[in-house]
């Protein structure tokens, strides 16, 4: 259990800047996910903690020790790779034993720890198999056991589930989370899958172009994104261009749309420093829209189509100024027909303002 600290960490590859001055503190035992599209610098950050690449400038501190200049084999991190990276010439047990053997641990302790690790990932019957004889999910569990058996200060997971199919991915998400909370190990998880990030993490850092756009709990990230980028990357969002018209005493602001129709809405903005006259974006998640005029904010729209996704159904609609909306239809509620003009309403508390 150690903390990981990034101080103004920057990484350039030639002219390319992969990481632009990141400050980040991962607390002991915390599960932090670096979320972002490929090329945003998230894997570079992870590889700098492991020591495979050195930062161009800045410091990385782990457990109170400056590790910026240490080679990977002196760092005591446990990494799980997307390609599993299991040693093909060693059995499952020998793969797990590798880190213990190079540490020259007594044989008895090695064997006890390997047994524990195998039990932790439910692979006791497979100890003598070779990686080539295992399924993808089993291989990834061996990789996980191999990484935690050395009792690393930090567990580093580099898109460990990307190569697996959906069902297995969900199973292993639960498994990884269970192991992480059993061992209470500080964990950095890299993924481009927002579902994985939201379901597993204590905090999620959304990365964009070498910077952390927002770092927050999954709930805050989803309910109160701080930028158009985060709002669009995490879940679906309806965004309206608005101008602030009035600040009210109860933490609410009144905003107006920019277009000719001048529709007026109320939004919660207690957490924002915002001035009258400022341009901003009003964001509403599809599931916070209701059909009908039962709530404080109402807008008229024409139904353009519908998408059925099994557990949920979306309706696409067009607003008076040509804005497009996505509305989630509630279970049991009839979906309006294409071409129908409907009223869409939402509560002031369930929308957010972006000052960007």
């Amino acid at each position: 259990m150690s903390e990981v600290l990034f101080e103004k960490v920057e990484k350039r590859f030639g002219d390319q800047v992969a990481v632009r001055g990141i400050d980040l503190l991962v607390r002991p035992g915390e599960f932090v996910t670096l979320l972002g599209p490929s090329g945003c610098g998230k894997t570079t950050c992870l590889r700098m903690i492991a020591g495979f690449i050195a930062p161009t400038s800045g410091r990385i501190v782990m457990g109170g020790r400056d590790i910026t200049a240490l080679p990977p084999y002196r760092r005591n991190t446990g990494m799980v790779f997307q390609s599993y990276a299991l040693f093909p010439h060693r059995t499952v047990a020998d793969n797990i034993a590798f880190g213990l053997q190079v540490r020259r641990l007594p044989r008895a302790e090695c064997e006890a720890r390997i047994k524990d690790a195998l039990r932790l990932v439910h692979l006791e019957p497979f100890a003598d198999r070779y990686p080539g004889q295992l399924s993808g999910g089993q291989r990834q569990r061996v990789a996980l056991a191999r990484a935690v058996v050395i009792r690393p200060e930090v567990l580093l997971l580099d898109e460990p589930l990307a190569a697996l199919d959906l069902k297995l991915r969900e199973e292993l998400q639960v498994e990884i989370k269970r192991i992480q909370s059993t061992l209470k190990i500080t964990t950095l998880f890299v993924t481009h899958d927002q579902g994985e990030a939201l379901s597993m993490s204590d905090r999620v850092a959304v990365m964009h172009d070498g910077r952390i756009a927002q770092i927050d709990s999954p709930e805050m990230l989803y309910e109160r994104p701080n930028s158009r980028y985060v709002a669009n990357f995490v879940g679906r969002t309806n965004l309206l261009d608005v101008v602030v018209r009035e600040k009210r005493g109860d933490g609410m602001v009144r905003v107006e749309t920019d277009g000719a129709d001048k529709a007026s809405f109320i939004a919660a903005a207690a957490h924002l420093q915002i001035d009258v006259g400022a341009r901003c974006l009003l964001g509403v998640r599809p599931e916070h829209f209701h059909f009908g005029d039962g709530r404080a904010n109402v807008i008229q729209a024409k139904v353009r189509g519908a998408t059925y996704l099994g557990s949920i159904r979306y309706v696409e609609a067009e607003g008076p100024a040509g804005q497009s909306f996505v509305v989630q239809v509630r279970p049991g509620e009839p979906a309006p027909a294409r071409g129908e003009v409907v009223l869409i309403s939402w509560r002031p508390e369930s929308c957010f303002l972006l000052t960007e």
Partner: protein
Amino acid sequence: MIRWFALRATLFLTFAFLLAPVCVVVIASFNGGPVLSFPPRSFTTHWYALIKPEFFAALEVSLIVGAVTALLSVGLGLPAALALSRGRFPGRDGLNAILLSPLIVPALVTGVALYQFSLTFWDLTHVVLGGTLIGLIVGHLTFGIPFSVRAILAGHARFDYALEEAALNLGATPLQTFWRVTVPVLRPSIVAGGIFAFVMSLDDVPIALFIGGGDATTLPVRIFTTVEFDFGGDVMAIAALIVGGSIVLMLALDRLIGLDRLFGARA
């Protein structure tokens, strides 16, 4: 059905074409009648008793030269292959081409060049290469190293660098990583390269003809020179022994390592 039959027939004819001369040699070595008559008239093993001691001495030379060539080829070929596939240094493409060229240049040309080289080398250093085991080994390394490098490069093309990163991450030093991960993972192609070098060395006539001779006469050269004057049953017998030895070697390798694994097709 017709397709199945055609496939089987083609397979049979191919094997017959490849193996018939070998079978003829083995059968002829047991022929009691006049040499080179086929089919044999009577059965005898006395040709085997007539094999001259110089053939066994030549076999010993061949095996020593082959083994040393194989070991040195792999020992020098592995670092070369790693440098070629991982390094970014000036002259890399040139080195690659040089390591490929002995596979393109006819062995006879290499043999002449080596002969010339051994004379020049003697002029400069008064060290004798011609007719010595060291000279033979140097000669055979000219194709042994390229063969090993090619074999290891082929195996290395699918190497997952994450394996080495995983080892470093688990606390292995770069040297431990090399011996415990890189070498074992590349072992099938290293062994294949070594076997290639050994077999090529055993098989070589042109280079051994120019640089060998005297105490450094290999078995193929001995057979070659003997056949020129005296084509007897003892030559058939030694040829049959080589066939038998090759079969035993292949079976042993298959049992010990697995031939499919050795040549790349592993799970």
